[in-house]
């Protein structure tokens, strides 16, 4: 089998991988290769033909393909190699990581590089994972599959559809199917609050008079060959169907939009530690996983609501990989940080790699913990000394998700330091809701007083962030 030597391999050519590859090239990494299993770059964006992407980065409301083109268009001139129609099958960690790739043209090949960025995106929750009882008829799809059917292949999945789950993709597809002449009977959401962004409820459901039924779920799918209808029922506070509230709905199509799960088959195989809450790798301030030289960004790390944040993360990972390669070249890896410039840090041979899956103990990790009303914070740990040594225009970017909606919320990052607790960052959000990520930046100089642990809290004044 042929082996190709590179400096950086990026697995996945979606917005995360593209931003990472471009940032790494800009930071001077010579040989960067993107491996993408599809026949083109852009990832999931190519099927998201609706507009609303890029508001933060470009101040425009681009469609998915337009947003993808902004990055994919820069790839050739940036000197990034792309290998399309090529699936990464395995990542083997080592002093030089190896990525086993099966390519349409190349067959089975190995890429070897000291740094690898995982940018495989996420996948959809399926019916099997939701455990919906009933027949196994044709006509049950995930929302992303329907999106592909309709937008890429120009097919119509059925005549009358119900949508299970009010995630953004389901809302977007409710509108899209309606415009394509499919009758959408309603959206059923088991939770008492919607899963998607408010603006999508307004512009996808309200605009077209599609009802959203909260605290309601599908309890049975009727077949046997093709979907003939579903039974829906209201649920109680514990999400159990309430007897006597069942109703039959005629339909030939069921669209499931019940959430996304980071795609981490490869990460698991590589021995990367995963966070049980985000279901993505545990990462640090430069989006390095627990295996040195293996980085992760985009929906692999946690499911993002906005693609702008995905691109921002890609940039952090690309720069991080460049920083890692520079440290490695200087013989400083797997030990101290680049921030501790001048300090001789010696730990084993250059490029020594910790046991896969084992959090390397040589760094002094500053854990980042979710506090009040915070479901999770990414990154889960930072090297505070290293981060404190970066220029002020390269803050540590944190993303968090709240558990409960709230109004007028104070988002606070607090650091524990020898001199007592210090507020590292604070911002006021008008409203916080579980589907919407909160982004907070911490300036490098605020970490200077020797911060050893960080906690994120969201304290809201009013309870109901949903009241619109």
């Amino acid at each position, binding site marked *: 089998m042929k082996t190709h030597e590179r400096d950086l391999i990026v697995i996945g050519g979606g917005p995360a991988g593209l931003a990472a590859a471009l940032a790494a090239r800009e930071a001077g990494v010579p040989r960067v290769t993107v491996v993408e299993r599809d026949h083109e770059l852009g990832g999931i964006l190519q099927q998201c*033909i*609706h507009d609303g992407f890029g508001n933060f980065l470009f101040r425009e409301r681009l*469609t998915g*393909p337009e947003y993808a083109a902004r990055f994919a268009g820069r790839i050739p001139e940036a000197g990034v*190699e792309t290998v399309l129609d090529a699936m990464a099958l395995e990542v083997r960690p080592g002093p030089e990581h190896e990525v086993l790739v099966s390519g349409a*043209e190349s067959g089975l090949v190995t890429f070897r590089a000291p740094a690898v960025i995982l940018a495989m995106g996420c996948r959809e929750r399926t019916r099997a994972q939701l455990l919906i009882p009933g027949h196994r008829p044709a006509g049950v799809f995930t929302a992303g599959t329907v999106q592909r059917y309709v937008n890429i292949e120009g097919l119509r999945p059925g005549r009358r559809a119900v949508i299970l789950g009010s995630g953004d993709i389901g809302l977007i597809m409710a509108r899209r199917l309606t*415009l394509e002449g499919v009758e959408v009977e309603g959206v059923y959401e088991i939770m008492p609050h919607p899963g998607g962004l408010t603006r999508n409820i307004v512009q996808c459901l309200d605009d077209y008079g599609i009802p959203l039924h909260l605290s309601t779920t599908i309890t049975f799918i009727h077949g046997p060959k093709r979907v003939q209808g579903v039974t829906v029922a*209201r649920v109680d506070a514990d999400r159990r169907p309430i007897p006597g509230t069942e109703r039959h709905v005629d339909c030939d199509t069921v669209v499931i939009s019940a959430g996304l799960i980071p795609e981490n088959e490869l990460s698991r195989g590589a021995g990367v530690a995963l966070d049980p809450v985000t279901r993505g790798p545990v990462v640090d301030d430069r989006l390095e996983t627990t295996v040195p030289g293996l980085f992760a960004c985009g929906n692999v790390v946690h499911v993002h609501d906005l693609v702008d944040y995905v691109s921002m993360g890609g940039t952090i990972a690309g720069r991080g990989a460049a920083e890692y390669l520079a440290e490695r070249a200087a013989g400083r890896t797997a030990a101290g940080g680049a921030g501790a410039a001048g300090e001789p840090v010696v730990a084993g041979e250059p490029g020594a790699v910790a046991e896969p899956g084992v959090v390397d103990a040589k760094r002094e990790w500053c854990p980042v913990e979710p506090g009040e009303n915070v479901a999770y914070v990414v990154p889960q740990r930072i090297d505070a000394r290293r981060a404190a040594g970066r220029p002020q225009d390269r803050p540590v970017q944190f993303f968090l998700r709240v558990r409960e909606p709230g109004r007028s919320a104070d988002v606070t990052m607090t650091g524990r330091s020898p001199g007592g607790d210090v507020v590292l960052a604070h911002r006021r959000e008008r409203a916080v809701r579980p589907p919407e990520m909160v982004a907070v930046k911490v300036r490098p100089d605020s970490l200077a007083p020797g911060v050893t642990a960080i906690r994120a809290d969201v304290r809201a004044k009013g309870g109901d962030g949903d009241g*619109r």
Partner: protein
Amino acid sequence: MDGERTMGGARGEERRLTCVLCPAGCDLMVTAPEVTGGRCPKGRDYALKELTAPTRTLTTTVRVEGAKPDRLPVRTLGEIPKEAVRRGVRALDAVVVVAPVRLGQVIVDDLLGFGVPVVATRDLPATRDLPATPGRIARDG
């Protein structure tokens, strides 16, 4: 109540709207011509227009000959009246373009007479122009 949500219904003189222009999705309180609750000035314009003559961007696909996949994503370059979006999509159902197509290429000059063009939102090379070996790995060195 089953799925009841408070919508932009009249509440005295005041109406509540959600601005859909950006992901912030601000709650707007409208007592024309007063609009409060927007994080930026666009919210006010949106609310006043939404209550008088609401408009939307239309996105859909049209058929393409000579390319794979054979659907081309398109958008209106600007907004059309909200009530015309369905008609617009139906009108575009009848359109067939021939590959290659460039991002931004005008597909329809004036959709339904609103003076708004429809443009392609991606490049779509003709199948015959595609490189024969898309997944080639550069020579090492």
